[in-house]
Structure formats: C-alpha cells, structure tokens
C-alpha cells in the first residue's frame, strides 16, 4: 500500500467534503491575460526585430531587401514605431495590473514567495543544484512556479522594453527630448537602443528558444504558453516544489482544467511554429551579417 500512497495524490484525504471525482489530467499554469501578453510580446518583438534590423545592420547585403519588405525605410520605420508602441503599452499595462494586484488587492504573493517573479535566495540555490545536476552530482532542483531562467527572461523583457522604449521615444521625438536632454543623449540613445536590441534579439532567438522550446524534452515547442495548461505529471516532474506545496495545501485541484481542445492546440502550434521560424530566420541573417 505504500506504493499507492506515493502515487496517489492526497487531496481525497485533505478535502473529505469534496465529492470523489477523477483527478484532472491538466493543470493551469498561465491564465488567459498572461497568454495574450506573451502572444502580443511575441508578435511585436518579431516585428520590431524585422523592422529594426535593416538599420542596425545597414551594411549587410540583406538590409535593403528586408526594409523593402516593409515598403522601404519609411514603411519599416512606421511599422517599427507601431510595434514599439504596442509592446510598450502591453508592458506598461502589465506593470499596472501587477501593481494594482499587489498593492491595492493586497496579493503580496506577487512580490515575494514561491509564486513571485522576484528573484529570491531559492533561485540561487536552484541554479547551484541545476549546475550540479548538469554534472551528475545531484538530483534536479525542485523548482517552484517560476525557475531562475524564466525569471531572468521576465526581467530581461521588462528592463529591455522600458530602456529601449525610452531610448526609442527620445529618438522618435528629438525636438521634445532636447528640451530636457542634451543632444549627445541621442548618440547614447541610439547606441543603447542598438546594443540592447542585439542582446535581446540574440538572447530570445537562442537562449529563450532553447530553454523554452528547443531543448530535448520540449522539442520542437512547449505548448504551455499557448494552451495555458500542462499535464499533471509534467508539472509534478518539472515543478516539484510547486506541485507538492499545492498538493499539501490541497490547492492543486483549484488549478484543474480540461485538456486543451484540438483547435486550441492547433492554433498554438501554428503561432509557435511561425514565431520560431521567423526568429530563427532573423537570427541566421544576423549570423550572416556578423560572420561574413
């Protein structure tokens, strides 16, 4: 009977009043606003990369052709500003929601604790354990809801969007900016915009794609960001800390959702495939421009 006790979750005992029902096969990981935010960031990020790269790599042989895809430099510039505004708007909206939830509704769990995106001591412990696991020196870390590399991605997007958004606005409205800033700030703004863009593009198209989608076990794509849910066993295996914490608290079944409908899965696969392909294609262009 010991074996059964290990395999069977304990929520039948911790919630005796609930009617006995089969355990859900899928658990919610990303709610709808989060999934929408990811798709918006994904589309605008790819759009910003594609419309900005002709300028960043203006000496590359493909630069002019890429700009012509957006009807020339002026079209690319217009599209770049549009995507930039949408991305900046989405990130500012997200921050507003987080602040409202944390400080008005008092969801302090957003600011600290296992469900928070804020880096905490356990993240450094997890990193240490993960490195040990890479070298067969220990078991994989028992991750909480967000891993250290996911937190890095999150803060990188936040920092990158705000910094590049600010620099982009300075370059977009130089006359207004020159009322407060000296002209050499345009030089700094352009440099920072380009350097941060290089960092962001290569980071997303290599590190994020690998960590999130292309690594063995997830290849070719992790659908969780499009469907919102993961299989129960997957959560147990990959977020052992979160799974067992919720299980102990009897809160696991609050995350229960129906398996993703085939249409949702198909839409997610298409969106992800397009995003990954565009990203990889743009990365190849960068490689070509840098290594030629």
């Amino acid at each position, binding site marked *: 009977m010991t074996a059964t006790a290990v395999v069977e979750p304990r929520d039948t005992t911790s919630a005796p009043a609930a009617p006995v029902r089969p355990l859900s096969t899928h658990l919610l990981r990303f709610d709808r606003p989060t999934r929408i935010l990811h798709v918006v960031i994904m589309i605008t990020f790819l759009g910003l990369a594609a419309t900005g790269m*002709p*300028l*960043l790599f*203006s*000496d590359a042989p493909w*630069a*002019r052709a890429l*700009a012509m895809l957006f009807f*020339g*430099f*002026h079209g690319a510039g217009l599209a770049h500003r549009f995507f930039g505004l949408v991305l900046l708007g989405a990130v500012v909206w997200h921050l507003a929601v987080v602040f409202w939830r944390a400080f008005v509704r008092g969801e302090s769990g957003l600011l600290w604790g296992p469900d928070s995106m804020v880096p905490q001591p356990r993240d450094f412990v997890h990193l240490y354990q993960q*490195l040990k*696991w*890479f*070298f*067969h020196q220990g078991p994989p870390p028992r991750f909480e809801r967000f891993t250290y*590399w996911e937190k*890095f991605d999150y803060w990188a997007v936040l920092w990158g969007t705000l910094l590049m958004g600010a620099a982009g606005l300075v*370059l977009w409205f*130089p*006359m207004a900016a*020159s*009322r407060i*800033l*000296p*002209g*050499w*700030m*345009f*030089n*700094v703004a*352009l*440099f*920072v915009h380009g*350097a*941060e863009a*290089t*960092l962001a593009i*290569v*980071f997303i198209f*290599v*590190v994020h794609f*690998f*960590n999130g989608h292309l*690594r*063995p*076990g997830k290849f070719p794509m992790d659908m969780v960001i499009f469907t919102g849910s993961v299989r129960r066993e997957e959560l147990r295996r990959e977020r052992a800390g979160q799974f067992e914490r919720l299980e102990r608290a009897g809160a696991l079944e609050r995350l229960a959702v129906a398996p993703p409908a085939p249409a949702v899965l198909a839409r997610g696969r298409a969106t992800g495939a397009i995003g990954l392909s565009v990203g990889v294609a743009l990365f190849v262009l960068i490689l070509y421009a840098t290594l030629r």
Partner: protein
Amino acid sequence: MTARIGLLCATACLVPWLAGAAVAAPPDVKPPTNEDCVACHGDASLKRDDGRSLAVDARHFEASMHGPMACVDCHADLAKAELPHEPKLARVQCGSCHDDIGGKYRDSIHAWAKDRAGLTTAAPSCASCHGTHDIKAHTDNASRVFREQVPATCGSCHSGIRDTYDRGIHAAALKKGDSRAPVCVDCHTTHSIQRADTDKWRLGVTAECGSCHAGVVDSFRRTFHGKVTELGFTRVAACADCHGAHDILPASNAASMVAPARLVATCGKCHQGANERFVKYDPHPNPRDYKRSAALWWANRFYWVLIPGCFGFFGLHSLLWFRRSTKDQEKRP
C-alpha cells in the same frame, strides 16, 4: 616557251582588270596631307566669314598628343574631298577612337544638354575641355585638364561654382600644392558627369568623401543619418547637407556651416526648432573615444560586459543542459 605563254595569258587576263580600275578611281586618289592643309590653314590671318580664326599652328599641333596623326584622321570627311574643301565640315568624332570615353560622355548630363536639351553652344563637347589642335596629356601641367587646372576649366562655364569652390578648404589645399585635394572631377567624375541633385548621386558621393576622410565616414555610418543613407534611402543628411559641397570649411572657421555658432541654423534646415541643446548631438560619434563622449564610452563598456556575460553564461548553461538531457534520453528505453 611554256613560261612565256603563261606570262602572256596572265597579262591578257590582267589588262581588262587594270584598265577598269583606272577608269573607276577618282582623279585624286590621295587624301590631303598635313602639308596640304597647312598650305591654307598655316596662314595666321585665315578667318571664317563670321570672323573666327581658321588658322592652325602646325608647331602646336605637332607638339600635341595627336602630333603624329594626319589632319584627315580626325577630319575624316576631308579624306576624299577636293581642295579647297566646302566650308561646312562634319563634327569630329573623338569617340571613333576613344570609344569607351565616348560612351561615358554620351550618357552624361553634358551630352544630354548638348544633344537633347539643345544647348548646342553652351554645353561642352570633348574640345571644350580638352582643346582642339593642342590637346595635351592630363599629366602635362599645361593641359586644361591637368589636375590643378580643372577648377578653372570647369569654371569657365560654371563660374559661380568656381567662386564658391575657391572659398573652401579644398581649393586652399590645392593652391598650397596638395595634389590630394579634391577638384571637380573627383566627385563629379570626368566624362560620366550626372545631375548632382538625384538621390543616387547624393548617396554615392559619401564614398568619395570617405576616400580621404575614411574615419569620418565610418563614424557617420554609426549614426541614424549614416545608416539610413547606407540603406539607400534619403531625406536624412549626408556629408554635403551639413558641410556644404563646394565651399567646405573646417568648424574652426566662423564661415563654416558646422562652426559652433552656425550649428543651430545648419541642423535647423531639417530639424525645425533645433536649439542649443539639440546641437550638442555628435554626428560623428566614436564610442571608443572617452574624450569625445564619456557617456557613450561608458555605454559601450557596459554592453561589452553585459552582452558577452549573458551569452557566455547562458550559452554554457544551454550546452550543459543539452548534454545532460540527451544523456538522460539515451538511458530511457
């Protein structure tokens, strides 16, 4: 005996042919020699009805690049003419020998003006710059197309531009004997001269400035202006928009377009409302030059640490992860 008969037959066959040839040829088979021409044109007082001189100084001609040639090599329509010839001659076709240069000239704005716009006397042909009977090599300092003579030669028509050019630092350098100083043809070319107000021309001339000012063009390419123009689009500043074209002067000269006191006006040509703070922008930044801009230097330093740091850490992280995961998968049945 046989040989004599053979010779007779051959002669018999040739006679009608020789006779026919003699009848068909014009009375004067020989084209006029240079001496024939000089017999009349050597007279210094020989004039056309309208008073223009028709004299050719044989010594000048013989000392020219074309000295060994016959008059009729160029005045080809006189090769079969009887002397004295008709007053109206066909135009000399330099391109019949100099065919590559002739092709370039025919595509130029000068040929367009002459042949299509009808500026038959105002627009230059070959002779307008090179002369006629006294053509000298462009390496000969007496030539009208000798490097240091070029501004004067072009200026004989474009006198306003010549005056502007004379005010600039390039003309001053040329006068001091710096043969690297640009003259008209360095930017405008010699024979394929095009309109200078087209996008193609404006974008292309940056490379010409860069053939001497390489570092300056490199720094320009780091700016928004430089990148947009490199992509082949305009509406942003290229060299001449800020520095002027013919009367370029160093910033230290108060008359320069880029003199500190004139920057607000110069930038303001495009950036309406530019102010003193706006023009602190550096159109030729160098992130490695701390003295030029400490802020840019620090930004460059920061990203030189951040970018390799991020990619170094996560690159290694991904590689190790990949290695570990593939080993795990191999173990699975």
